[in-house]
């Protein structure tokens, strides 16, 4: 079947097609004009830029100067950063030194207190108590004893103890075993292993320090066990041991001599009283003050 053409239909279709082409052309033209506008604007900007460059002949110079300034500022920044680092390091050094000084200060305080307490009395028992206190509180020992030389039997005898009874520690012959060897040589002994001291071994102490007057060993400080929280000897402990070695020895010796002299003095005083009273006494009369 052939399609019949309606009269007047064809020109209308053509006209519509033409109109569409026209509209597209119009849109395209509009886009082109907009693009043109943008390009013109850019050209104008470029022209202005060129003009201003031409107008400022020192621009290059200024740029170079600014670059120099930037470089100089960067160098300054580097320098300041270096100084900051140096100051920071110095600060850290000062902080470290402060800690060391503080520790030294504490150690000196401990030594001062120990020495002060040792020489604060001439009472023999009091001196022994002070030595025990120092060893407990400043060194941190749990079980230990203090031995003194028994010259008559050439052995060390326990006079005070902590954490153990005095009678439990037997006398030790000079030169016998670790303790006897310390008494003989006058050289301190420190065990390598301080942690493995749970079992109380009276023959193998963790530390044995001789108490000396000049080169003469008059006694020993024998440590068997340290406090649980104490795992090692620190520098201050060795300094305290060194202080005890000499100061405790002299304090104990002085106190012993003093108590002996006190006893002698009271005996002599008793004799003197007796002598002065004798002439007044009637025959058969008892002395008023009994002699001790």
């Amino acid at each position: 079947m052939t399609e019949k053409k309606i009269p007047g239909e064809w020109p209308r279709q053509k006209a519509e097609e033409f109109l569409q082409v026209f509209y597209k052309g119009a849109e395209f033209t509009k886009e082109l004009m907009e693009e043109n506008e943008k390009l013109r604007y850019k050209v104008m900007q470029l022209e202005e830029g060129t003009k201003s460059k031409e107008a400022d002949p020192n621009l290059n110079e200024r740029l170079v100067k600014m670059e120099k300034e930037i470089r100089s500022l960067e160098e300054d920044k580097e320098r300041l950063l270096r100084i900051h680092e140096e100051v920071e390091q110095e600060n850290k050094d000062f902080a470290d030194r402060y800690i060391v000084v503080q520790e030294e200060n504490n150690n000196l305080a401990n030594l001062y207190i120990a020495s002060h307490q040792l020489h604060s009395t001439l009472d023999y028992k009091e001196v022994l108590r002070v030595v025990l206190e120092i060893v407990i509180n400043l060194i941190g020992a749990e079980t230990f004893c203090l031995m003194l030389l028994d010259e008559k039997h050439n052995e060390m005898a326990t006079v005070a103890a902590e954490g153990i009874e005095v009678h439990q520690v037997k006398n030790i012959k000079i030169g016998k075993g670790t303790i006897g060897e310390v008494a003989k040589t006058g050289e301190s002994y420190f065990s390598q292993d301080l942690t493995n001291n749970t079992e109380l071994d009276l023959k193998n102490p963790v530390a044995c320090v001789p108490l000396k007057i000049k080169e003469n060993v008059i006694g020993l400080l024998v440590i068997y066990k340290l406090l649980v929280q104490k795992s090692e000897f620190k520098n201050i402990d060795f300094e305290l041991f060194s202080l005890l070695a000499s100061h405790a020895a002299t304090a104990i010796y002085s106190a012993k001599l003093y108590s002996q002299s006190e006893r002698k003095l009271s005996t002599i005083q008793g004799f003197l009283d007796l002598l002065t009273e004798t002439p007044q006494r009637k025959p058969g009369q008892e002395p008023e003050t009994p002699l001790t």
Partner: protein
Amino acid sequence: MAKHNILIVEDSPTMRQLIIFSLKRISDCNLVEATDGVDGWKKLSGQNFDLILTDINMPVMDGLKLVSLIRSDEKKKNIPIIIITTEGAEEDKKRGLALGANDYIAKPIQSHTLLEVVKKYIH
């Protein structure tokens, strides 16, 4: 500035001297010494304290008894107490804290440790 009153209850003169030496670095504090629990309790009756440092093992009255007494006293129960413990004193430490002690320091005392602990309770 108001002074902080600190009571030090310790039977050992060596320890007392060491504690006093350390605490003297705190400028605004007034240190009072007591030689045992009974002495400490007497001192507590006559003065107000901001902090108490007490040893555990003492003659006459020990530190634990003192802590217990202070915590049961209406006027004194809020004073912070620091106990000083010694050898194998884990039990003492636990008992002290259970009785109401605020903190503890183990012997041998380090000056800086003592200061750190004390400064927690005095401002």
